């Protein structure tokens, strides 16, 4: 792949005091595409996302290569990272209730993301934030700018979060379960807005999710993680042809509307999955 946004080779992450690594020997490259990372809780998918952002100060991170464009993420100083984080790579978190500052206006928080990285007058940052709110399809953006997080709904909060993260025109966005805290009626709307902006701006997206079928539709490629390792890499469209028994088990265990009411197939875990090479 020419000019990848991310090039990761044999990344392992071990939390301080943990008996084993939470992420083991993960390798992938990411271009200007949408990559899904799927797995159960505890499979290391969020740890991987945080390691890419260098948000795990106490964890031991090792890799052969961990390159984000021209930045060597393994050896970059925290000072360098401050210029990268929120500017060139940013992260959308799961629940806007817990990830927005409750005592500051939503709009000011968005504008802050801009002013941290660009010198400009406050009025200019405000205008940027209002424009971005409109880009995530919030009506009456200048009114919403002055609202506090408790005054907006979950779907709107997550759109505010997206606005904040895309305002600085990053090259890489990591979305960690961006819609799992939202009601199903607004989930698709938020996903479509994120998807539209990511495509329009040519951003590399890493979408972390436990929901295989969601990732199928909003990603180009999918990494399946189990016990800290990537067990299978698939084109999202070919998810139904997954060969790994873990991937197939996850797909089968999901109840479906009008899927009959028989006993759901239960995943039978094989210890060999933890060691065998990725497919």
């Amino acid at each position, binding site marked *: 792949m020419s000019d990848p946004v991310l090039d990761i080779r044999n990344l392992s992450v071990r939390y301080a005091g943990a008996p084993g690594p939470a992420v083991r020997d993960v390798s992938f490259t990411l271009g200007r595409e949408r990559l899904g990372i799927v797995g*159960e*809780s505890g499979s290391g998918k969020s740890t991987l996302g945080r390691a890419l952002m260098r948000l795990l100060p106490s964890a031991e991170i090792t890799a052969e290569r961990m390159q984000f464009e021209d930045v060597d993420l393994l050896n970059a100083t925290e000072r360098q990272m401050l210029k990268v984080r929120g500017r060139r790579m940013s992260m959308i978190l799961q629940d806007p209730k817990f990830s927005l500052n409750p005592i500051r206006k939503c709009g000011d928080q968005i504008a802050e993301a801009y002013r941290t990285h660009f010198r400009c007058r406050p009025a200019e940052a405000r205008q940027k934030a209002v424009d971005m709110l409109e880009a995530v399809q919030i009506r009456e953006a200048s009114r919403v700018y002055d609202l506090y997080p408790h005054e907006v709904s*979950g779907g709107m909060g997550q759109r505010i979060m997206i606005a904040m993260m895309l305002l600085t025109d990053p090259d890489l966005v990591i979305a960690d379960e961006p819609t799992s805290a939202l*009601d*199903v*009626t607004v*989930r*698709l709307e938020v996903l479509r807005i994120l998807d539209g902006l990511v495509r329009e701006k040519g951003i590399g997206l890493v979408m972390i999710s*436990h*929901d*295989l*079928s*969601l990732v*199928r*539709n909003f990603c180009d490629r999918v990494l399946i993680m189990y016990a800290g390792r990537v067990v299978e890499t698939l084109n999202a469209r070919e998810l139904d042809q997954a060969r790994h028994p873990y991937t197939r*088990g*996850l797909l089968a*265990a*999901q*109840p*479906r*509307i*009008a*899927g009959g*009411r028989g*006993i*759901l*197939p*239960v*995943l039978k875990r094989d210890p060999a999955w933890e060691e065998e090479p990725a497919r």
Partner: protein
Amino acid sequence: MKPLSIRDLSVSFGALRVLHDISFDVRAGECFGLVGESGSGKSTVLSCAAMLWSQWTGRVEIDGVSVQDMSPAERCRTLQMVFQDPYGSLHPRHAIRTVLSEPLKIQGFDNRDARMEQALGDVGLPVDFLDRYPHQLSGGQRQRVAIARALIVEPDVLLLDEPTSALDVSVQAEILNLLAKLRDEKGFTYIMVSHDLAVVDHMCDRFAVMQTGRVVEVLDHDAISSNGATEPYARELIAASLEYERIA
């Protein structure tokens, strides 16, 4: 098997009315779903029926007896609740033995050891789990313990508040299978709160759609796949779930 009926259940928190004249009937042995957006009052209905919150008006009857007229002990023998988050609903410093023996002591059951072993067996856990603590169990195992704690007093009605939404799909499948099996074996009547219509379609016979503290419509589970709802909000909710499932 006992039926449950709710009539004109209303709740106000100060000036704020959170439930407006909720009425529905659950047949004996039925699994009845409650769906709706967050904040629509689904869980509040369960809290009221279980008398975890007692400041309400209206009637909740199980087999013709009002839950307000039951003594606490009688009420707990009649209905039990399983909560959403198995990480939060077990006491972190109580061994599973304590978790399961306490309701037996309170209710004055005999043969406690045999009953605890039976309950663990019913939810598919080995007997030596009695001496474990919650932090030594996975999320799915904890939810099994929470279900064992509920069924150990041999209730008639189980109130399930999003019993699988904190769990992975693979574990969710195990718990849903377990709940279906227990219903067949023991004839429980379930009320199940869920935000996932695929789970509701899989488990429930009928379900009520709630919005801002009101029951908008009561539907048969078949109405999901065909979107047979007539009320606009219920149609919108089902359509969103269908679309999510189709494209997703």
